């Protein structure tokens, strides 16, 4: 059993999901793509130790996002997908996310090419999303994922929230929509400059269809 995706053989896919029933049902969906599902059992400990022990003997991953709440892992799915992206291992985030999860996902969104709503997952989607991941590793981006350097205008910083939330506008994406992201997304050395009225350069996927797809990365402050 294996699937050829954009010239790459995918024979084993690990499922990291804290709920046993959901884990089983995801495994069945994966089987239907002709890939061997490998259900990962918790608790998983830190992201480092998980990657050391689990990342080498598999071709792909599906993660749930909220893994910390139940004590299944010491990291969340978005973090893990982003780390695996850097290792060029195709990984999908399959979650029933709500607006409340957006901030924690946005922190890693640049490195999450595949975010699937749990009620939308099916064998075709899995095959398609794996292809999107693999193409992106080869710098072949979907129009909605291509990073383009652009100006970001900071509207204000909401320090009441933890972590503080930045409200900003990306005029070349949508000059009327204020988007929010955690201040921790901005590198430490320029974080002090972030306040209302300041403009920064950043890599943004200007083709994003809505704010949930939007990512911001590689911030630069030129004073």
């Amino acid at each position, binding site marked *: 059993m294996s699937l050829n995706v954009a010239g790459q053989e995918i024979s084993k896919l690990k499922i990291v999901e804290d709920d046993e029933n959901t884990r089983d049902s995801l495994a069945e969906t994966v089987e239907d793509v002709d890939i061997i599902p490998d259900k990962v059992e918790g608790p998983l400990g830190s992201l480092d130790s998980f990657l050391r022990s689990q990342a080498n003997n598999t071709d792909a991953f599906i993660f749930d996002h909220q893994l910390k709440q139940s004590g299944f892992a010491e990291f969340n799915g978005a973090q893990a997908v982003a780390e695996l992206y850097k290792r060029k291992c195709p990984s999908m985030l399959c979650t029933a996310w709500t607006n409340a999860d957006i901030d924690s996902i946005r922190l890693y969104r640049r490195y999450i090419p595949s975010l699937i709503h749990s*009620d939308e997952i099916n064998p075709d989607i899995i095959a398609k999303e794996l292809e999107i991941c693999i193409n992106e590793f080869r710098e072949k981006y979907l129009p909605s994922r291509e990073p383009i350097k652009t100006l970001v205008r900071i509207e204000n910083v909401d320090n009441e929230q933890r972590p503080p939330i930045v409200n900003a506008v990306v005029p070349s994406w949508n000059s009327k929509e204020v988007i*929010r992201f955690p201040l921790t997304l901005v590198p430490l050395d320029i974080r*002090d400059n972030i306040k209302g009225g300041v403009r920064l350069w950043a890599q943004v996927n200007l083709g994003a269809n809505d704010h949930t797809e939007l990512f911001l990365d590689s911030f630069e402050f030129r004073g």
Partner: protein
Amino acid sequence: MAKANLKFSTDIIIRLGEELNPSPDQSILELVKNSYDADARNCIIELINTGASGGTVKVCDDGDGMNLPHIKDGWLVLGRSRKNIKTRTRLGRIPAGSKGLGRLAALRMGSKTLLSTRSRTLPQKQYQLNIDWSVFDKADLVEEVDLLIESSTCSKKNKSGTEIILSKLKHRITRSDVKKLARSLLLLADPFADNPEGFQPILQAPEFVDLEKLVKCRYYDDAEYHLVAEINKKGEATAFVKDWKGAELFSAGHKELSKKSKGSKYICPSAKFDLWVFILNSIAFSTRNTTLTEVRNWLQVFGGVHLYQNGLRVSPYGNSGNDWLDMNLRRVRSPEERPSTNTSIGRVSVFDTSALLTQKTDRSGFIESDGFLELRRFATDMLDWMALRRMELAEKRRAKARETAPKRSTKSKTTVQEAIKNIPKSAQGTVQAAFNKYHNAKEKEVTNLRKEVQLYRTLSTAGITAATFAHESGGNPIKAIAVSIGTIGTRCKRLLSKKRYDGELAKPVERIKESTKALKVLGTATLELLDYEKRRTGRVEVHKIVHAITKTFAPFLKVRNVKIIKELVSGNPYLRGSDAAIESILTNLLNNSIVWLEDVPKKKRVVVIRTSIEGDVLILNVLDSGPGINDISSKDIWLPGQTTRPNGTGLGLTIIKDAVVDLGGNVKTVEQGELGGAEFIVELPILGV
């Protein structure tokens, strides 16, 4: 090999002089700070015919003045200051000037500058220097222009000091500039300290006299709370809050004050933060000698938290519109027990002998270095701590009121009964009957309020529990159902013929998928109502919310066969409020319609959401094809707890009414509207379309 020097074009003087000149008041203030550094006690600023261009500004002080080397090697050298922050002046002041550039900005205000100065060691000898800036404008390089310093002997009675006359001003100084200058001068040397020996700059202008009177008013005794907080050399904070009598209410050490940052020390110079907080309502002022208006006017002019570095004020902190500690923002978020810049006055005094805080060259405040950010963290931590303690106090007050109110009520009732006994017998019966009637009505009102509070508590608990369950069910069981039904569909298609699947299984599989989506909506809608962002006040685009809510409800409405028709006016009407308020109105109206549509055949279930605009009012109509409003008067439907539905809370419409009123609008109903069912008409004032 040829020798060369870097030369400066005279343009550099224009650049520095004009581009570093933020406003006339700030430029003149730079000259006044020079007087402070020269240990002057008095400094008089005169504005002569400055209402139009061509006027004159005179700044005259009784400081230590300058001798020839001071002028040549100090005053005339730009970009370097002889003032060493570590060396105190003769009077122990820490010099305020830094680069000497601020002075250039001021001197360039006029076409000519005349400096006259007599040093403290030899006051009989006066030096004069006349600078005609037009000569610089004609020359190519700065060093081509020679300046002549003339000396003369004057009477022995003369004292040391410096006089600077800026003549033929290029621009006029507006009334608002004069007001700003007067305010800046009065605040410059910490008027809070009340030190008669301190630096006293005086502006000869009527605006100054009025403000001077106002600044001397010192209404500090009328403050409800006085916060005093300090950071010591080790970076540890202490704080206490006193009441208006001076009695200590709360105090805390570093550990408690810096809880938010887990006890980390404040890495900034030693500082002291004083804040006087006023409660500006007529009850608080009813027993005082001062009036509410007096204090309010005083706070309007001088309110806010000012920042003093080594005794001198640093602009713009505490200026009107500058809320560097975000006090107003914090008050908007949690209005209870939070001061704003209009209800408080204060200062942060920094003792910065190591120059950890550096002012920007254009004098628009400090460079936002780590030191400055730490200082701000200190001040905001202190405000947070005071707010928490005051909340605690308010909660205790409320608890006590709950305990004592019934006792007070019984006591009052006895007093009235006693009073009735003392009136003529002929009137006693009527008065007693009237009192009984009043008492019964009051009791009924109290009972209703208690019921309402109990209902709100129950619903809040239900809301919190629903949110917890929504999160859990959305994340696990619903996800498992959604994924499994997908697999069942895929596998059945593979195992059976297409005909058999389509004929026998496609419908139930699709039904489960739709129902799962509808189930998920219930959870998502609950969680989204709790979104923190939605409760913030700001621009709210009503149509955006209409679309979002109808999208959220779509699967649920589909299952119930309810058709939504949106008839929205063209444009994008918006108002100031919170998303949560508009959501409350729409969600509750929609919920109300959905429930009543249960009584109507499936094919006839329709809800219309319509918007129209009349002047600056948005009219939102929500009408349905339900049975309409029956068995209850359309006046009573707004009352809490009033419902004609079994298991109904009777709160939905009360919430709608409260939310509409909060937004400055009103709401009415038509018992049987154009679709046959109830019609709700909400009118909301808008800011634009």
